[in-house]
């Protein structure tokens, strides 16, 4: 195991922490999507993480490497969750799972950068949103850039912490935008001032990783 990289157990904990965060913020996410969309983002996200947890439980081998937990989340979000954001999150998890697989037993900051970039590329291919369209792309793009910008050898948790910060900045920026894609686009200027819920979800995902290392897996430091 590379020092400062995520093994299977840490990755699994990251996913469970993300789930816990989603439950804890569901009401807030719902409120955001009610202002900027159709109000189901909170439900969609919690349904996804719940399905993901079930698959994590079923897998039962936390030492099997970092790809499996990400793959469980990918399968859950891709297969079980409707709406726009569910499968898009699934694409991010799928790309991370693939990179984790090539990375072997532990996810380095570089592998996380590659996986996030590929996930972002897939999301943009599929959803056709560009930065500035007030979608989760506005959080994911700066997150991917932050991961890539981390100097060689940066521990994964530090890289993810910077990614989370960058994503939160992206979230704040979406509040100033009017929506061009997704359901919010029908509301035009009326959503200016409200941050994009999907972008918040992305920021929560990276932030959960940072928390994981700090609280759950200090051995990785």
């Amino acid at each position, binding site marked *: 195991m590379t020092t400062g990289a995520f093994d299977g157990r840490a990755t699994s904990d990251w996913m469970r922490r993300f789930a816990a965060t989603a439950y804890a913020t569901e009401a807030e996410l719902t409120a955001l999507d009610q202002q900027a969309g159709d109000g189901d983002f909170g439900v969609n996200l919690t349904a996804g993480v719940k399905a993901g947890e079930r698959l994590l439980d079923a897998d039962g081998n936390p030492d099997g490497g970092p790809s499996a937990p990400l793959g469980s989340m990918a399968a859950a979000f*891709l*297969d079980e969750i*409707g709406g*726009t954001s569910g*499968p*898009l999150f*699934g*694409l991010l998890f*799928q790309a991370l799972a*693939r990179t984790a697989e090539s990375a072997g037993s532990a996810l380095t900051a570089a592998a996380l950068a590659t996986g996030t970039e590929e996930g972002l590329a*897939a999301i943009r*291919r*599929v*959803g*056709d949103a560009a930065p500035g369209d007030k979608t989760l792309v506005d959080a994911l793009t700066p997150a991917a850039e932050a991961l890539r910008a981390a100097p060689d050898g940066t521990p994964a948790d530090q890289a993810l912490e910077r990614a989370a910060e960058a994503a939160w900045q992206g979230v704040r920026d979406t509040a100033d935008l009017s929506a*061009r*894609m*997704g359901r919010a*686009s029908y509301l035009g200027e009326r959503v200016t001032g409200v941050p994009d819920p999907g972008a918040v979800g992305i920021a929560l995902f990276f932030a959960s990783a940072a928390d994981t290392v700090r609280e759950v897996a200090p051995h990785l430091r």
Partner: protein
Amino acid sequence: MARYFENSTDDLVPDALAGFARAHADVVEHHADSGSLVARHTAAARRVGLLSGGGSGHEPLHAGFVGAGMLDAACPGRVFASPHNRQIYQASLAVARPEGVLHIVKNYTGDRINFGIAAERLAHQDVACARVLVDDDLASDSEAVGAGRRGTGGTLLVEKILGGAADTGLGLTELAELGAAAVRRCRTLAVASAAHTAPTTDEPAFTLPAGELEYGVGIHGERANRTRPQQPVAALVEEMTDALLAAVRPGPGEPVLALVNGLGAVTSLELYGIFGELGRVLDARGVHLARHLVGDYVTALDMRGFSLTLLVADPAMLPFYDAPVRTAALRW
């Protein structure tokens, strides 16, 4: 459940699927896992599987066009809602051929995203996949519409041409290019004199003042961008046809395929009257009406309206269109 004959709103689509699969068991097979309909017979020469899908409520599109000479599979979503990417992914795996699978997708955000995700998953499994995006609706051809032109009636013609082409053994890229070319040469315009009955409320989705017409409707019961007085059908069809001709611009002698399509509740008497007017206008403009279809092919539940589609065929397309087909809703 008052206007609609159903067990419940949620049962409408699954019950229909089951009934359809039984009614046409000689042609299609119902894959319960993916909730898709898969052709029982398909040409051995096909190197690419053809798959389409989209929200339900547009019957016979797409399930009615699954079968020999046309689609290998169709994925129906709930009424007016995209199918889930998993449906598309699983059905794609079921019908993929050596050169992969071609997705024929009507241009709506939900469909693009779900077909796109399915394509990502297929790539993940090393299954080649390409997409033909159908965006033939003339009424949404405007800068103001960020999502681009909608996909409507022309989808049927594109699916038929691609089916004939796939049976000759064309590869994935060639088919994708052929489909894109067919879409470029194809435009549709639709009008309605009464809304469909919304399955959730059992009420008309909108009400039109007597004597008014929605000009430029889509196939989801959405209103058009303008309402105007109804007029004699000769004048209406002439205006619509001229608008379509200006968009597709057939060259001298180029063969044109026409679809006169009922949106659900319009009568057969009206559709044939409309076809007569269309024929007269095309004759007067010196346009060669080479092939035509008249009927309910791409509907919007029980909307009372119709669409006109013109597709200017290039020399390769006509034989593909003419090639034999054996599906629930189209056979020759």
